[in-house]
């Protein structure tokens, strides 16, 4: 087994378990502060390698979402947002592509393309993920402002956590 696969397995469990055992508890601890929920697990979807087939990315995102849903007791909600994020990933990557384009051997990381690029890429996909998640979570557009507030609040705090994680781990492949 090569390093990339092992890395991604480690990220799956690392981010997934951190989400359900640490970040979920922190969200509960801020009781009532549901406008600031920390989402770290989508980082797994962001860091999948370029050469992974899109079908595999969709499937792994689905599995990741179901894994999170199992602990959040929200069967399907995180999974649908994850699948949606995975589906838009190629479009966002094309949108933020650096001048030289991507090397298919690479992984979309800060180490390869720099911190500003990564933060731009991550914040767009996180915005998509959170907007979809909070829409499905409320399951009605009666309160679009509420969904917007949750997306912005959770997006900011999640990006801080993603930035910290990237700075500490600095994944390369």
């Amino acid at each position, binding site marked *: 087994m090569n390093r990339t696969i092992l890395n991604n397995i480690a990220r799956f469990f690392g981010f997934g378990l951190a989400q359900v055992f640490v970040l979920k508890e922190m969200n509960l601890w801020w009781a009532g502060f549901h406008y600031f929920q920390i989402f770290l697990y989508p980082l797994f979807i962001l860091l999948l390698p370029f050469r992974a087939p899109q079908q595999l990315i*969709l499937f792994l995102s*689905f599995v990741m979402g179901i894994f999170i849903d199992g602990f959040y007791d929200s*069967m*399907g*909600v995180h*999974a649908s947002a994850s*699948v*949606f994020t995975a589906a838009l990933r190629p479009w966002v990557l094309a949108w933020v592509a650096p001048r030289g384009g991507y090397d298919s051997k690479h992984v979309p990381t800060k180490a390869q393309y720099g911190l500003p690029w990564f933060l731009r890429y991550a914040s767009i996909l996180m915005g998509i993920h959170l907007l979809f998640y909070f829409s499905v979570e409320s399951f009605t557009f009666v309160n679009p402002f509420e969904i917007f507030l949750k997306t912005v609040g959770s997006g900011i705090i999640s990006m801080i956590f993603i930035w910290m994680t990237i700075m500490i781990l600095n994944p390369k492949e």
Partner: protein
Amino acid sequence: MRGLLQFLYANSSFLLFILLEIICFLLIINFNEKQGIIWWSTASATIGAAEKTKDNIAQYFALGKENRILLDENAALRKRLHQLLVMQGDTTVGDSISRENLPALLKDTANVDTSKNEYSFISANVINNSIVGTSNFLTLDKGKRHGIKEDMGVISKDGIVGRVRKVSEHYALVMSILHKDASIIASIRRTGAFGGLQWDGKDARYMYLNNIPRHLEIQMKDTVQTSHHSDIFPKAILIGTVDTFYAASGSNFHTIRVKLNNNLGRLQHAYVIVNKHYAERSDLEAQQPNE
């Protein structure tokens, strides 16, 4: 075929995305209380509105036929009115009742003593109906607000329909006679023999009349009607005709297959029977001593 496969292959990631989202969506509405409630209430409201529209359209196309049926019904009522007037000894009435003298004649019948008249009728449209399976219900577009109460009988122009089971403000849910738990006291017009009419859950055109002792004589095509023992239907409302009958060996009773006169699958209008004495009678019967 090759084109289809190529299409599927070329769009496989998009199709996988759609498939996974559908799975997620099904999981969401089935395993999440809040989202499930929102989904099902929205869905049922939408389906309800769509059904109502469908019903309105269907009613529009059935107008010609309905008109004819109403004319027939009118004719029958006029005939009955005529008979009533004659019975009253009003010999001045001619053979014909025209549109011009109808109001005057109706005024005449107003003097007929109606205080003995136990029953009145509420007309309603059937907005939902089923005749498959063994537990059939209908929905009527009138409810509590219009005077419908639980346990009232429901008939149509051609026969009996069922019994009101639940009422809301604007709707009534009727247990069809085509329901495994429905049992109607019915009698044979010619002999007066009575028994319980039940459905076997198979063919919506037939019901079975049980508990008529085998020593009583029965003929094919005998008319089956509601019995005067029934507490919810007026007596002598046509139900159907005897289709076949036999007595199983060792049984003391006939099994009679009754061909229903009305077609419950095509019901559009129904009349709910208001029995003014129903509560009084059922109260009294509930008091019967048990020894």
